[in-house]
């Protein structure tokens, strides 16, 4: 019975639509769980800047507030280990997701970011058998996710060696920055056949490429509604085809249920993997329909879904 247990969400960043959708899913599912009497509280906390130190302090405050479980989307896989360890030592269940932590006492709901990078190249290889030139738009330098996806892309290019990355820029996961960086590097690049991204930069890249008067290459998208809408428009106009993939913001609700399960005494392995959410040419219209304007394609998890994920892993 977990009806008197309190769970907190420690979130390190709220400045993009993905995080906003993530917080919203948490609130929706969490509030429902509280009113159903499954748990006593599901409070969300956000730091003002994307900083590991600030989040570490936030976790320490949660320890003081006596939460029974802390669900973390971490700014850094390692820099929070000190605070996470302190939480574990205080008897608190810590579940990390999306941005996971390496501290062994915590649970990890990981997305295989490397695989996400690799699959992009794989998809392109399917579309362009004779290979071609790729532009890579990376995220924020020095951050775990950026490094992982990049490694996956690099692995993919090694596997499908007809592809060559002719240019790479850091878009800092911000639309305007990505657009600017792409516009700056484009003039010095040969023709581009594909653009591999980390999610959310597709629209900006498309704009920059169009502004430079070049043909639109295959841009791998990141499930943002504006990207998908642009994709649908292009598809209707000229049969444009591509792939979109990203981690669903609703994974926060999975983490919530996993935490609840752990508190309930269930046997939960420390490492869980969630599949990422893929939108293909076939599911595009469906995805567009269910995604609010300006938001991100999403799936939320129920307790049953969570139990299934746990059972699969066991």
């Amino acid at each position, binding site marked *: 019975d977990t009806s008197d247990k309190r769970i907190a969400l420690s979130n390190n960043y709220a400045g993009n639509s993905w995080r906003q959708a993530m917080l919203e899913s948490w609130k929706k599912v969490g509030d429902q769980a509280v009113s159903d009497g499954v748990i006593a509280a599901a409070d969300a906390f956000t730091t003002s800047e*994307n900083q590991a130190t600030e989040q570490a*302090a936030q976790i320490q405050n949660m320890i003081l507030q006596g939460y029974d479980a802390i669900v973390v989307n971490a700014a850094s896989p*390692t820099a929070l280990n000190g605070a996470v360890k302190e939480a574990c030592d205080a008897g608190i269940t810590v579940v990390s997701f999306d941005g996971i932590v390496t501290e062994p006492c915590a649970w990890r709901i990981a997305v295989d970011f490397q695989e996400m990078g690799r699959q992009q190249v794989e998809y392109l290889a399917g579309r362009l058998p004779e290979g071609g030139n790729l532009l890579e738009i990376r995220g924020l*330098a*020095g*951050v*775990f996710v950026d490094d992982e996806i990049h490694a996956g892309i690099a692995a993919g290019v090694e596997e499908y060696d007809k592809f060559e990355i002719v240019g790479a820029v850091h878009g800092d996961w911000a639309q305007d920055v990505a657009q600017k960086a792409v516009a700056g590097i484009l003039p010095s690049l040969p023709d581009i056949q594909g653009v591999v991204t980390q999610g959310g930069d597709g629209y900006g890249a498309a704009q920059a490429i169009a502004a430079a008067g070049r043909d639109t290459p295959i841009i791998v998208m990141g499930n943002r509604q504006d990207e998908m809408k642009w994709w649908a428009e292009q598809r209707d106009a000229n049969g444009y085809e591509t792939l979109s993939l990203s981690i669903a913001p609703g994974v926060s609700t999975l983490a919530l249920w996993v935490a609840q399960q752990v508190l309930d005494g269930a046997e939960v392995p420390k490492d869980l993997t969630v599949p990422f959410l893929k939108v293909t040419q076939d599911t595009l219209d469906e995805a567009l329909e269910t995604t609010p304007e300006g938001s991100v394609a999403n799936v939320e998890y129920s307790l049953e879904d969570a139990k299934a994920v746990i059972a699969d892993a066991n």
Partner: protein
Amino acid sequence: MNGKFRILLPVISLGVLLAAVFYLQPRAMSYFGLNLLFNLAVPIALATIAQMMIIMVNDIDLSVGTFVSFVACVTATFLNDSPLIGVLILGASILTYAALGALIHLRQLPAIVVTLGMSFVWGGLAVLILPSPGGAAPGWIRTLMTVKPPLVPMAIVASVLIAALTHLLIMRSATGTLLRGVGGNTKAVARSGWEIAKLKAGAYGLAGFFGVLSGVCLVGLTTSADANIALRYTLLSIAGVILGGGEFTGGRVSPVGAVLGALTLALAGSFLSFMRLSPDWQIGAQGAILILVLAVRLIFSRKASGQGGAA
């Protein structure tokens, strides 16, 4: 007189905030609670002292945050794997800081631009050292940062030590007085036969030294590093110095105030967590509380100006 007012403000704001935190969360009123509240403030306090050294000579350092991140990366990698090389790198970075101080004076460069440029340089070096987060804290730092002294938690002991030592260094020693003199009236100090370039190099070198301490402590707490770990320290450290009664020009700084200012800022974040605001407004509330704490200055500056008059 003025000095007393200067120190009163940070003391009171810290006191009030601490009382509010204790009221909201009585559990904080314990050895364990105080340690949790304050241990992450120790590296902030050190970074604030570093910033203060620069503000003391009328400059401002926009690279503190990236520098501390850089040091953290070095600490979690070189200092852990091959201590000698690690120490050499950190030593060289302090020398770099000192050299910048001399360069800024000799070529009459605006410090804010040079440090802005350096913030890119330190950030770039950090990314090169640790392209993705990781590394490990050397055992001795970890031990030092998690030691549990009797009665008073380590965070408090460390803060008191930092405040006392830097107070002796800056406010009492002959060299510290000279450095503050540079901030007060550079021309007069130069006229008296002192080499300003050397003094500025000294002040910057001290800033580098405390920046290194900050980065090392930070890794001791977090157990690992990443290239963006302390970016926020730049603005936090400036706010800490001001909150501690320092001023941007004129060499008016207070080390004790700076440490208290850093603790206050750290506590402000905790206070907000305990308030349980809606996530929409949590970020804004951080701004609001900064405003609130600084607005207290108003009362004191009114008093102080009533005293000093237009003299």
